[in-house]
């Protein structure tokens, strides 16, 4: 009973703290009419009107279709590199291949830190670093996407590998399997379904990230949205946004189907 009371107490304190933090953050804004652009309120109306009348001319649709394909291409290429990075670093960060305790500790410490560094910096910052350092190329977008996504995936892969049930591994070990054999016949098959399901979830995020890679000058849906905004063609903006939503929903549907089959 006292333990229960303490739990409730903790949670209440936390809620109050979070509400206080929100109120504190409200003071960062100078509230008033000055927040809007002079024509800002008229722009809202135009945006809403354009939402219901998107530009559906064949030219725009064609551009949107090609841009959508480009976005998929960058997302897929980035994800494929990220998965390779994640598999290598994730296995090393889980420490399951190391024979001795010291080696395992060193491997876990170093690679967990590396993965943390990779994912701490947002993909667009990576992209900007790549472009500023070595110029504009699709590879800038792909590597920029692959590094933080590899970091996130790798960390999750490591966690999944560490959470694998112990009993089958022990029986493998007892029948004389080495670390590598244990990995291929024990760890990997058991962790496979969870790994695939999480990768599919991240693929949906990769589509969105690939879209905003346009900000550093690469083609795709984001680039078209940017151009349309600069032309003040809000109807075209919505067309491209609708294509983006379509893509995300499609990937979401696919990953849900696959996840249901794999995990259930």
């Amino acid at each position, binding site marked *: 009973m006292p333990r229960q009371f303490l739990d409730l107490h*903790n*949670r209440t*304190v*936390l*809620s109050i*703290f*979070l509400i206080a*933090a*929100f109120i*504190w*953050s*409200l003071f*960062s*804004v100078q509230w008033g009419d000055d*927040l*809007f*652009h002079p024509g*800002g*309120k008229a*722009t*809202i109306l135009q*945006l809403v009107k354009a939402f219901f009348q998107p530009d559906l001319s064949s030219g725009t649709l064609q551009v949107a279709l090609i841009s959508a*394909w480009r976005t*998929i*291409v*960058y997302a*897929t*290429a980035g994800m*494929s590199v990220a998965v390779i990075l994640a598999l290598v670093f994730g296995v090393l960060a889980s420490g399951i291949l190391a024979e001795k305790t010291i080696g395992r500790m060193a491997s876990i410490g170093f690679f967990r830190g590396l993965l943390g560094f990779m994912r*701490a*910096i*947002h993909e*667009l*910052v990576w992209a900007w670093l790549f472009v*500023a*350092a*070595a*110029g504009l*190329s*699709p*590879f800038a977008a*792909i590597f920029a996407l692959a590094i933080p996504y590899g970091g996130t995936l790798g960390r999750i892969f490591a966690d999944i590998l560490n959470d694998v049930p112990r009993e089958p591994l022990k029986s493998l070990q007892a029948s004389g399997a080495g670390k590598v054999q244990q990995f291929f016949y024990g760890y990997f098959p058991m962790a496979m379904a969870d790994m695939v399901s999480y990768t599919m979830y991240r693929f949906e995020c990769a589509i*969105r*990230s690939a*879209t*905003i890679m346009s900000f550093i000058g690469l083609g795709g849906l*984001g680039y078209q*949205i*940017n151009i349309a*905004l600069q032309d003040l063609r809000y109807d075209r*903006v919505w067309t491209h*946004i609708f294509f*983006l*939503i379509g893509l*995300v*929903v499609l990937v979401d549907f*696919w990953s849900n*189907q*696959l996840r249901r*089959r794999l995990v259930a």
Partner: protein
Amino acid sequence: MKAEQEISRMLRPKRCSNRVVSFARRLDTVKISLWAVLILVTASWAFIFTADGASLTAYFSARNLYYAKKFFSNMLGLGSEAPAFLLAENWLNGLKLTYETLQMSVLAIGFSAIGMLFTVIPAARTAADGSLTLKSTWYGWLAFGFIRLLYIFSRAVPELVWAMLIIFIFKPGILPGALALGLHNFGILGKLCAEVVEDLDLRPIRSLRASGAGTWQLLFYGVFPAVTPKFLTFLLYRWEVIIRTTIIVGFVGAGGLGRQFKLSMSWFHYTDITLLLICYFLLVIFADLCSGLLRRLAQ
């Protein structure tokens, strides 16, 4: 959960035909997905190498490596007389921007949390079909569909695109950035939390109802206490992500570190960029530690 899985596994062999059918279907989706992934990856790389004409050797050419070296030595302040990260004044400015960024992130998660709390109950399938509230109405279903569409819509549009749109309405500052971040995360939080409500154990709620509780009493004594820990966990987890993304919405003019980052980029103030990146990195680490601590408190 584990026990239920065991039980269902034990029951399965009795329904042999069903099992075969479900196995075949399962194999199909997996097989098709495998092929789809293979084709997609091959086609993507082929497109990049042919249609885009990109080449790896050109990207890692001696000239590019020279530029990269020059860029990074600029960022480290080699050859610069007064690197920004050695001046106290610049640090003060950087920390002030970090503080603003932190405020922006809290404001953003606050907006999305408020939006989520007002919509999450009707967005749960169990509320619409009446197994939660014991009342199924046509307007319940309508609200369910509408809110779910709203979630998908706000979730599918990235923060940066929301920010680009919002910056047409608001003057640059903390608020437009927080709104853009809040809009995107509203959809994500809504989806995650609605699933939590759907997964609720319905038995305590039925017993509450049986002892005469009204709808509001059901919510406050049956639903909210059960979902709060998970809601708080998701909230803190999304806050971590928001911290990382604050710098991005700053790029298009919303305030904080990102805006200064963009300006320093345009002025080629390399050492300023290094300083801002250090501030950003510290903020991310701080947020990770903070949210880890608070999450333990929420459990």
